[in-house]
């Protein structure tokens, strides 16, 4: 039985009758066994789990990517992932034990003594859970200082102030003394291997700042300043989100996170300080003419509005409308024409009254800002 299909494969008949090649049923199986009656009993027993595990494969994509807690790029996130995996492993063992006991109880014909059952309930239902919970609690509490590291003061630490707005992120890089070096929006750049302290604020409603690949989330509460420290360890581009419902466009309030090497970060800081939006005079003139500067700022120009996101070096950003659309000219133009269609309840008014060519020109200007 085991030699037949192998012989068929080597005799050069060319027919795909080797089940190992066709992938049908079990690794080795003769045609006789795959006939209808046998199919009912044997094949199905092995195909079903195969198909169901195949169907569950798409869920595995959640195990990696720019926004997965299970694919950590920072120290705190690595601890969170370790905690999750430890809990998962324990839960699987306990689940298997309970499911096994259930099968045993369902199939066992011969009854057990009442005393034995009482012992099982005492040990399995009271003492075992108590011990397991104590162990889990100890492990979690022991892990807590790692997940939310304690830091004393901010001396010598890099500080970034992030303000949650409806529905975007104001990001300010602070100098040593606490003065604002420059402002940007919907994008956070971090040096890897260096602990960064985030000051989290909001002027409107409660938001929550969360970069899943780097660590846990922290709420931003009106009237308060919450602190969070993160340590990025793996360079890459990640995604952060708002993790507390904050209004109509809550789900469209994301930001890009770039974790880069320290020298590259320093270079970027220097370049960013020197950035100017005055190169494209025609685009800038249109931008100013239509009043964009009432809300938006672009460094090196007269545009100094503080209500909306700072647009300095906008062309470098990963997205339009806080992580909603890829950063393309057409998307910028669409957003200017009618922001509310892309982001419901956004504060920016529509500019559909502007001539199309001018909107496109402003979009091109913004896309060109470096």
């Amino acid at each position, binding site marked *: 039985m085991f030699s037949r299909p192998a012989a068929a494969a080597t005799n050069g008949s060319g027919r795909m009758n080797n089940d190992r090649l066709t992938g049908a049923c079990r690794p080795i199986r003769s045609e006789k066994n795959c006939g209808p009656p046998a199919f009912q009993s044997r094949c199905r027993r092995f195909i079903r789990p195969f198909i169901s595990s195949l169907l569950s494969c798409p869920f595995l994509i959640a195990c990696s990517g720019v926004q997965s807690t299970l694919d950590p790029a920072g120290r705190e996130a690595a601890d969170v992932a370790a905690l999750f995996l430890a809990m998962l492993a324990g839960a699987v063992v306990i689940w298997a034990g309970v499911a096994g006991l259930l099968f045993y109880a369902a199939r066992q014909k011969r009854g057990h003594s009442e005393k034995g059952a009482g012992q099982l309930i005492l040990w399995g239902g*009271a003492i075992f859970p*108590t011990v397991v*919970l*104590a162990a889990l*609690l*100890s492990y979690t*509490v*022991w892990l*807590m*200082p790692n997940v*939310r590291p*304690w830091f004393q003061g901010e001396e010598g630490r890099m500080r970034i102030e992030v303000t949650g707005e409806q529905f975007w992120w104001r990001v300010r890089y602070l100098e040593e003394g606490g003065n604002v070096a420059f402002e940007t929006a919907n994008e956070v750049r971090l040096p890897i291997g260096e602990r960064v302290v985030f000051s989290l604020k909001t002027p409107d409603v409660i938001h929550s700042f969360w970069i899943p690949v780097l660590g846990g989330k922290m709420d931003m509460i009106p009237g308060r300043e919450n*602190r969070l420290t993160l340590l990025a360890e793996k360079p890459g581009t990640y995604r952060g989100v708002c993790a507390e419902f904050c209004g109509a466009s809550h789900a469209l309030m994301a930001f890009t996170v770039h974790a880069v090497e320290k020298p590259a970060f320093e270079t970027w800081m220097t370049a960013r300080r020197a950035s100017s939006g005055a190169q494209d005079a025609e685009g800038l003139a249109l931008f100013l003419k239509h009043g964009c500067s009432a809300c938006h700022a672009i460094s090196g120009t007269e545009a100094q509005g503080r209500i909306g996101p700072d647009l300095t070096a906008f062309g470098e950003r990963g997205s339009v409308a806080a992580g909603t659309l890829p950063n393309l000219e057409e998307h910028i133009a669409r957003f200017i024409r009618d922001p509310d269609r892309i982001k419901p309840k956004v504060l920016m008014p529509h500019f559909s009254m502007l001539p199309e060519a001018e909107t496109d020109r402003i979009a091109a200007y913004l896309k060109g800002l470096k």
Partner: protein
Amino acid sequence: MKSFIPKEVETLWTLFTAPTVWALHFVVCYATVAVFCAKRLPASFTFDDVRVVLVVVTLLALAMIVLSAFLAWRQWGFGSGDPPHDEPTREDRRYFQGFATLLLSGLSFAAVAYAAIPLIFIAECQP
């Protein structure tokens, strides 16, 4: 020995001894740490002192719960009869209450121990 151990009383109130101790322990632990961290007392009184105080409180609470469990065990006739004690007799009522108190004491013991676990690991007041 007999003088230390309270006389057996027949009242429903003894049922709540252990959960009450558990509740008080919980309040004392949380309030002490919260007040300590909010007030920032002088350096002579450190977080380790708070830890020691609360460990003593925990041990006292556990001792009271063990005492309550012992009294319940006695009320249950030291396990001479098996539950469920559902006869409409005075003795079964006593046994039932004793057994229930014993189980509640066990629950409270575990709960007080759990509430004290963070005492071992908490490093400091956090800003």
